[in-house]
């Protein structure tokens, strides 16, 4: 019984070759291995190579101006296209001080904006986690009324583009006492109150808007855990005579800690690099945040400087990831979902029930419903806040609504939105890009999820799944910068809209950028959905001779339909409303968001508001329709 075939002492090359051939054959006979290898290649090209390019671009002299500047500053003799380390000190330790500058170049362009960005990101994290977490707790653990309404409406700010909240903030608070604001806002026109400038523009509104935008994200993640948490965990503590407060502090909070950390991770990475919200809310100080200076560097041809900043933003994300990993690894991951779970007794808020509910209601309505109303009003008033100038012309006028020779010379039509060729075609492009990105991400997400769940714990699967997750941590603007670097190369210049002057170039590069950037959620959704299916479900079909394609379409997909469709929905919505990610690789006419931003910058606020309403309304409608038809929802996409 214990006899073993002894291997021959002599090395037999033929046998070795045959054995390797057999191993390879066996390896590639499994569909999931093929998928893993294919994605290993695709993601390496799509994620690692561009990152490498970005870092290496921070070590090259890009223009003659750059060369001249570096040579003057550091007494070097570099030429355009040469390798240099001096881009880094040029940005980081440049004490050059011109007349009228309050501090050295580096301090003004890099260190101060970095500090502001970090403080803003931290504030946004705190707001998101506190607001989202408190609401999640109130909804899942107390007897607060209006639960359904609050939980439905509360996610709107996340579905809406982050800048639309910024736009709303401006619409609402702008007033006569603030010189930079266009017209008067809702608050002043309704109540006559003029808030000071720091409420309208700058650090405070940016942090609040970012925080509120991501609060639903915290709500979905934390609420998901609270909802699925095994009731016994808390009941056991109750029986051991722990007080309610102690249970929350010692049992509930530690269990939701991982979700809070994920939220903080994303909110920090997104806020620190967000370009659009600061662009709207920092009109008075155009170099206040790092993302703003980075954009302006890249837009004004200071590529070296821009890529150094992008690399630094990337390093931030990497550090966050490492901290997060070591944190979650040193502690055990909690299995909070067990099969059997009773309904946890809800905390009775008694007399506080109604006041709390009303505060919550006002809060959600203010950030979810009032913005929509404000976009409607703004797009229907010639002078913001002046009710007598009410008009439909920005929607339906056949003639230009704004006399602006500059816009006209740039080929931007200002006729009514519903008839406007510039807006409608950009909206169409946004839609096509969102559709393609959603198809790519959703499908790849399912495939990656399938392969990873089949080969769980193998190094290859772990690597591919981390690769697919990596874009999550790369700030959108860095990502855009990476691909800007790629399309500036000779080989890919056909994708550079500023060279080709053809929008199709921008559309293609947007699909590629979006397809990679929005992969993480889709692949996570796909993996979670696949992991929920026991392997036996598929094996039962294998035994009957069902081929792979049929197993996917007839067995696996239908069972987890709503999760998988969520994997398509989230990239679609994110892509439709995205601006930061695409800003560097598009023209100002490519996407609806481009046109909108461009019009805002050039003072055509009513039309910009109209476009905003169009996008937000479309996204919310798509979300609701898909949700009704298939049961898919963005919370499934995020929470899995």
């Amino acid at each position, binding site marked *: 019984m214990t006899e073993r075939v002894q291997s021959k002492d002599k090395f037999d090359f033929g046998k070795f070759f045959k054995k390797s051939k057999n191993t390879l054959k066996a390896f590639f006979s499994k569909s999931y291995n093929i998928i893993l290898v294919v994605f290993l290649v695709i993601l390496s090209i799509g994620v690692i190579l561009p990152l490498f390019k970005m870092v290496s671009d921070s070590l090259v002299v890009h223009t003659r101006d750059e060369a001249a500047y570096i040579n003057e500053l550091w007494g070097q003799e570099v030429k355009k296209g040469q390798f240099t380390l001096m881009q880094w000190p040029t940005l980081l330790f440049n004490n050059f001080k011109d007349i009228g500058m309050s501090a050295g170049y580096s301090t003004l362009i890099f260190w101060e904006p970095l500090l502001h960005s970090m403080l803003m990101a931290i504030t946004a994290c705190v707001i998101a986690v506190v607001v989202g977490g408190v609401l999640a707790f109130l909804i899942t653990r107390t007897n607060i009324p209006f639960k359904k309404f609050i939980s439905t409406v509360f996610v709107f700010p996340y579905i809406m583009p982050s800048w639309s909240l910024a736009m709303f903030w401006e619409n609402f608070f702008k007033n006569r006492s603030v010189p930079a604001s266009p017209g008067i806002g809702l608050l002043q026109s309704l109540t006559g109150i003029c808030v000071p400038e720091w409420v309208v523009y700058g650090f405070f509104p940016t942090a609040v808007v970012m925080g509120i935008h991501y609060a639903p994200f915290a709500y979905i993640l934390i609420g998901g855990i609270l909802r699925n948490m095994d009731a016994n965990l808390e009941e056991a503590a109750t029986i051991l005579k722990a007080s309610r407060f102690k249970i929350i502090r010692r049992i509930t909070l530690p269990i939701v800690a991982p979700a809070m950390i994920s939220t903080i991770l994303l909110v920090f990475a997104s806020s620190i690099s967000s370009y659009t919200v600061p662009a709207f809310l920092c009109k008075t100080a155009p170099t206040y945040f790092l993302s703003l200076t980075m954009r302006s560097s890249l837009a004004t041809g200071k590529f070296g400087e821009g890529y150094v900043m992008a690399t630094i933003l990337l390093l931030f994300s990497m550090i966050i990831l490492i901290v997060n990993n070591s944190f979650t690894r040193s502690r055990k991951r909690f299995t909070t979902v067990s099969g059997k779970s009773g309904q946890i007794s809800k905390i009775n808020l008694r007399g506080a029930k109604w006041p709390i509910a009303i505060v919550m209601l006002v809060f959600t309505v203010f950030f979810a419903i009032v913005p929509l109303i404000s976009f409607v009003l703004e797009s229907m008033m010639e002078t913001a806040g002046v009710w007598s100038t009410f008009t439909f012309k920005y929607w339906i006028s056949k003639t230009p609504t704004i006399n602006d020779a500059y816009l006209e010379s740039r080929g931007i039509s200002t006729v009514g939105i519903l008839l406007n060729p510039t807006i409608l075609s950009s909206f169409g492009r946004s839609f096509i890009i969102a559709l393609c990105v959603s198809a790519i991400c959703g499908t790849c997400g399912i495939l990656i999820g399938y392969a990873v769940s089949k080969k769980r714990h193998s190094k290859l699967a772990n690597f591919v799944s981390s690769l697919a997750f990596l874009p999550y941590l790369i700030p959108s603007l860095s990502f855009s910068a990476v691909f800007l670097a790629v399309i500036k190369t000779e080989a890919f210049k056909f994708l550079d809209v500023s060279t080709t002057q053809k929008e199709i170039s921008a559309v293609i590069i947007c699909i590629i950028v979006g397809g990679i950037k929005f992969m993480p959620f889709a692949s996570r959704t796909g993996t979670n959905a696949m992991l929920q299916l026991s392997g036996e479900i598929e094996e039962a079909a294998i035994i009957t001779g069902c081929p792979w394609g049929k197993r996917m379409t007839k067995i696996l997909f239908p*069972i987890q339909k709503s999760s998988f469709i969520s994997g398509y929905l989230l990239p679609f919505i994110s892509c439709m409303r995205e601006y930061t990610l695409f800003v560097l690789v598009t023209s100002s006419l490519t996407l609806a968001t481009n046109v909108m931003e461009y019009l805002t910058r050039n003072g055509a606020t009513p039309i910009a508001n109209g476009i905003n309403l169009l996008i937000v309304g479309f996204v919310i409608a798509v979300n609701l329709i898909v949700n009704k038809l298939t049961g898919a929802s963005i919370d499934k996409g995020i929470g899995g």
Partner: protein
Amino acid sequence: MPRIELINVTKRWGNFTAVDNLNMVIEDREFITLLGPSGCGKTTTLRMIAGLETPTSGKIIIGEDVVFDSEEGINVSPAKRDIGFLFQNYALWPHMTVYKNITFGLENLKWSKQDIEARALEVMKMLKIEEFRDRYPAELSGGQQQRVAIARTLAPRPKVLFMDEPLSNLDAKLRGEMRTELKRLHTDTNSTFVYVTHDQLEAMTLASRICLIEKGIMQQYDPPLTVYNKPNNLFVADFIGNPTMNFIKAKLVEVVSPKEVVLDFLGRKLLYTAGEELNLTEESDLTLGIRPEFLPIVDGGALTGTAYSTLPAGMETTIKIKIDDTILSSVVFGSIDYAVDQEITFNIVGDGIVLFDGHNRVALGSAKVL
């Protein structure tokens, strides 16, 4: 007709060896159970034969066909092995009705519409699930789901049927019923069954042969009663039987004849008469294995102890007898109740007393207290 042969089959995951150099032959129309504690490699073995798991090395033959050979690089897909597989959690497709679940496999085999319809009705009738035809799995009870799973597995008329703990999710009563039906099905379908379980009673009652595995190594491969009566080693003896066999350390006192020895047994002298020749030395680490039914409680028995605890189960009663510092189990028919610490006398009877030398069985024989 399919005969399954495993030759030097080994499965490793990294440094962990799940199945170690397994050799076994499953004859046509046998009902084999793979038995062992959880994590012993029995499910892995089954999945390797079915083709759901790829062995690290070895060769597997089903009927005339080599379905796996690590040397030649042969690995026939499960679909082409002409087998059926019944999963522990049934693995019914939740989005298909009972009827669709059963016919899905037949469609893949490209059967004609009429044949599919006829066969589906046939198996549904066989398993008494016709009335659930249009229901979804979620609308069925555990037992009904199990029947649907069996029907689905049987529908393509597989020559070999693999079952992975198919009854472990059912309650005790249903499990008993399904056991009866599975044994009946084995005869009716005329196919080979390979059945994985950790429940020794299930293995005993169902199988024509039991393959007992521990830590990836086959311990014994024999008909149930042989495994019960002539265990190969201490592990097998201990694993099979409930209440478990009594193990008592013994020492060689005197060799009377080649087949007879006197042993020191709980401080008493015991004459052990083996059915074969013994070859013992004083250093032998001897253990006597006595099944509870070989320790009948009788008035004026040769051994005296006290009742430590009595466990009446209705049909039979298990009595734990304390003798010196050792506790022995005895089983008697009917219900009897002894007061705690009541004095009990009992005998050692029968010729199925096993003598172990370290781990490997030495002999089977009878014992008499001197």
